[in-house]
Structure formats: C-alpha cells, structure tokens
C-alpha cells in the first residue's frame, strides 16, 4: 500500500480544512476544559476524601480482575474461533462481539436476567454456592468482563489468524502435543497481541458505567467505581467529578500513547 503525505507547501481545499479544524477542536476542547477547570489547589484534598479514594481503589481492583477474567476466558474462545471450523462458528463470533455495539445498560439488564437473584443462573449460584453477584463487587467484575471481552477476543483472534499455521505443524512433527504447541509456539507468538488486547480490555473495563450501575448497583465501597462516582459527584458539585475524570483521562492518554503503534499504523 502506498502511503504518501502531500508536499508541505501545498494547501488543502478550504472547506475541508475548515471542517477538519472544527473536528479537531471538538475533540480537544473538552479535554482542555477539564484541565483548565480542575481544582488544582484542592486536588490532594479531593483525592483524600474517603468516597473518592474508595472509588479509585475499587476501580483498580475490579478492572484488573475483569482483565484477568477476560484473558482466562477470552483467549480460549479466540483460539477456538481462529482455529476450529465448528457449526455455528460465525454465530458464536457475532455473539462474542455483541457487547461492543450493545448499549451497556442493555447488557446490564440482560445480565440481571441471567445472573440476578431471580435470574436463570443467578438463583442457582446463590442456592448452591452462596455466590451473590447482584449488588456485590463480584457483580461489578462480571459486568466489566462482559463489556471488555470483545476487545480481547477481537485482538487475539486476528493475531491467531495471521499466524503461519505451519509453525504449529513444524512443532507437531517434532513431537509436540496440541497443548505443548499452544503453550510453547502459539501463545508466545501472539504475546504482543495478547498484551494489546489486555490493555484495551482493561481500559474498557475501567470506564464501564451502564452495565455496572444496572447490574451491580451504586454502593460506595462495594460497587461504586470511578465512572459511577463521577456521576454521583456531579450532583454535589463539579470539583470531585473533575478530579476523578482527570484520573481517567490520564489513564486513557497513557494507553493511547503506549499503544499508538498498534492502534493506528502511522507512517
């Protein structure tokens, strides 16, 4: 593919340049506003408040747990989708990607119907194992995993597909069982994609709002993650909400900078 920038001296047509400028401003200004309007002087105090500290810590713990769960469940499904031709494969792939386009709040409602106290599986979980998901921290992990999984599956499946399967053939002729091949050949080869997928999934889990509030509720210290706390803080005044938002912005920017080569292939 040829990729060429125009010469520096040339000027783009005016209407295009104008609209592009508006677009860039539209994306940039909200961030600038957040930074300008941030209560810099009282930032330390804001973060010291127990409800905000609790939200930060909870978000960190829960999003990492959701990322781990996504890896544990998502990698095998990605592998199956990439390597095995089973009936209904495209249906399963569609289902795996559904949370990507589904409004998170709908996802939350759907999770309630399955894993809620009176849900299909939720009742069983509670009766047999005493596990309650609705209104608990575990419930937040489930909600975040639900929305984060597609990012992981998509990234890892694409990497598995682009892998030359003959490397696995070569390993098999050297006496490696299917499990050894997966562990020593396939997994190391897709490690970069695995990392990228995990970071994307983590960022998505961290920002999750709709499914969490619907399925797990909004209980400070138990289910109130940063996005939920931002929402609650907004009712009180702007400072707390801005402080928490800044945290999410910094994390998002870090992710984008760290992954810029994987997200967009810039020249």
């Amino acid at each position, binding site marked *: 593919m040829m990729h060429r920038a125009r010469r520096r001296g040339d000027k783009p047509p005016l209407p295009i340049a104008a609209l592009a400028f508006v677009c860039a401003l539209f994306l940039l200004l909200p961030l600038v506003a957040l930074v300008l309007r941030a209560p810099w002087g009282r930032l330390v105090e804001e973060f010291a408040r127990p409800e905000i500290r609790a939200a930060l810590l909870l978000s960190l713990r829960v999003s990492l747990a959701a990322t781990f769960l996504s890896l544990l469940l998502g990698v095998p499904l990605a592998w199956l989708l990439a390597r095995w031709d089973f009936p209904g494969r495209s249906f399963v792939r569609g289902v795996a990607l559904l949370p990507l386009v589904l409004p998170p709040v709908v996802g939350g409602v759907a999770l309630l119907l399955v894993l809620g106290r009176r849900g299909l599986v939720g009742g069983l979980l509670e009766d047999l194992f005493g596990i309650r998901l609705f209104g608990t921290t575990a419930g937040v992990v489930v909600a975040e995993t639900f929305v984060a999984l597609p990012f992981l599956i998509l990234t890892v499946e694409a990497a598995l597909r682009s892998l*030359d399967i*003959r*490397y696995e*053939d*070569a*390993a*098999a*002729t*050297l*006496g*490696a*069982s*299917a499990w*050894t091949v997966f562990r*020593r*050949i396939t997994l*190391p*080869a897709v*490690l970069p994609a695995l990392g990228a997928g995990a970071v994307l999934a983590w960022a998505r889990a961290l920002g999750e709002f709709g499914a969490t509030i619907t399925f797990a509720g909004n209980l400070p210290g138990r289910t109130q993650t940063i996005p939920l706390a931002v929402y609650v803080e907004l009712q009180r005044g702007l400072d707390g909400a801005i402080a928490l938002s800044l945290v999410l912005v910094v994390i998002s920017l870090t992710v984008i900078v760290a992954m810029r080569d994987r997200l967009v292939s810039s020249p």
Partner: protein
Amino acid sequence: MSLQAALRLTLGRLELDAFIEARAGETVALVGRNGAGKTTLLLALAGLVALERGRVLLDGEVLDDTSTGLHVPTEQRRVGLLFQDNLLFQHMSIVENVAFGLRTGSRSKREARTLAQRWLERMDLAAYADERPSSLSGGQAQRVGLARALAADPMLLLLDEPLAAIDAMARAPLRRSLIAHLGRFEGSRIVVTHDPVEAVLLGDRMMVLEDGRVIQSGTAEELRRRPGSPYVAELFGLNLWRGTSRGGFVTLESGMELVVPEAPAGAVLVSVSPRAVALHGAQPEGSPRNTWQGVVASVEPDHDVVRVRLEGVVPVTALVTAAAASELGLVEGARAWAAIKATEIVAYPA
C-alpha cells in the same frame, strides 16, 4: 526403516492418488510442477493432512489405515519435516530450536540442551547457539532446521524444496552439507525439488508427480533416457513428441513423419537431445532425411551455447554455438531448417 504409502485425498483442486515407497537409507527425489501435489504428499505422510483412502506403513508400523480408521497423530509419528523457509521458532534461541524436539521426548531441559549443542557443533553452528534465528543467513537457518528435524530422531525425513529459498551463491555449499548429513541418517528420505541437478545429486531415485499421480519413477538416468511426459523431457531439456510407429517410420501427432529405424511398433514417445538437432539456413541436402522448416520463437544464451526454440509443424529446441547462431542469423522471427539424424532419435513405447 522403510516406507510404503498409498495415499488418496482431495484438497481444493488437487486429487492426490499416489503410491510411494522408500527403502531404509534411500533418498527419493520427488519432482513435479507447482500444484502437482508434492507438498501435500509430504504433509499427508506427516499426518498433517487427512487421507480419504490409503495406508501408510513406516518400518512395519501402520501410521494410517483408512480401512480400519487408524490414524497416528503427527506428534507420535517420528516423521521429520524440513520446510523450504525453515520455519525456525523466532521467539526461541537457535539451541532452543534444536532442543525443541528433544524436550518433547522425556529428556530433561539440560540434557536436551547438551544434545542440541552437539548437533550445532556437527553443523558448524555452535557459535550461534544463543542467537535468534533472525541473525542467521538463509543457508545457516536451513542447516539449523535440518539439525532440529534430525535431533528429534525421526525414522522418515521429508524435505520440501530445502534449497529453493537459498540464494544462488549459498546453494552449492548447503547442498554439499545436506548430502553429507543425509548420508549419516539411517531412515528413508523424500526430497521435493524441481531442480533436476538437485534431484540427481540428492536422490537415489526420482519420482515424478503430475496432477496428483506418479507418472514415472526410476533413476535419473532412466528418466533422462526415456522421459515419460513433456514435463520430464522439459526437466532434462529434451525434445519429446508423441507418435505412432510403423515400419521404420514414426508419424507424429502433427502428421510429420520421422525416419526412425529402431522404433517399436505402435504408440511411441520420441525423444531427441537438443544437441542432436542441427539448424540450417536453407533446406539441407544429403543424409539427414528428418528435416523441416520453422520460425525462430526464442533465442536464449545457455552457458557457452545458445538455446533456440523453433516453432513450426513440429516445435523443436536446438542447442547451437553462439557463432553458428549469428552466422545463420538466428533471431526471433527468422526462418530456419531443423535436421535430425535418424540415429539420434530414441523411440520407446508410450
């Protein structure tokens, strides 16, 4: 450690239906055009492609038998496979690559490493043990690939165009190295190639695959003397025509009649070395009766001679000296007469 395999399978447009046999210590050179099924045949022997019908027997052990449903998975076959592009594992060091097949056995990590190191020494690559495969030249990488395959102690070694991806300068040394190491290997080997020189140097016997079928097999000399198909003739650079023989004459498919005193009666193949084809500017007189006119289609220098392709009633290739070519004005589009002495023509049953 001999191999007997009857393989039948369909893969895309390829219908493979072949029987292949190799004695212990024998190297079979498998030749054929692209898409003839050479690589698929190797993959089937390795158990990487499923058979529709067939039976694979290696050293008396049944690896595949579709009549009983028996299928030994690849990792339990002890069949080594060397790919054209070596396929070294890029995330492992070179010694780890060679040790890979040793570790899948019951050997400890240290023992596998020691043995792998010894293999690298044998290949004169010990200095590269801890480097990544990307730091090797094509020839070195292919030798590591061979060491990796041999270290796993296979009973059958399959080599898929081992020299094809190597640049011309490195090819001869790698070929010598391959011959030396294959010589020490006790099992059977099958080498896929499309280079007749390689087939002759590496193989004890040649097998020609066309459209998934074995159309000829024998020593290189046997194939060169009596090529059984246009592909084999092309491989050795020979002219080959199909015809019907009767009473000292062979009538070619084009209707042209050749004088061939010693041709067996019936359907025959007629083969002529391009060196035995003389070219003339005008119709030759005298003894050679097999002459016809044609138009020069191509003129290609081939080492110290010139290979001239003449299109006409019977298309023919001739090798002439550069001096003769310029004297006769042999350029594309020029007219010339081809003449072949009857004694230079080899005819045999088709």
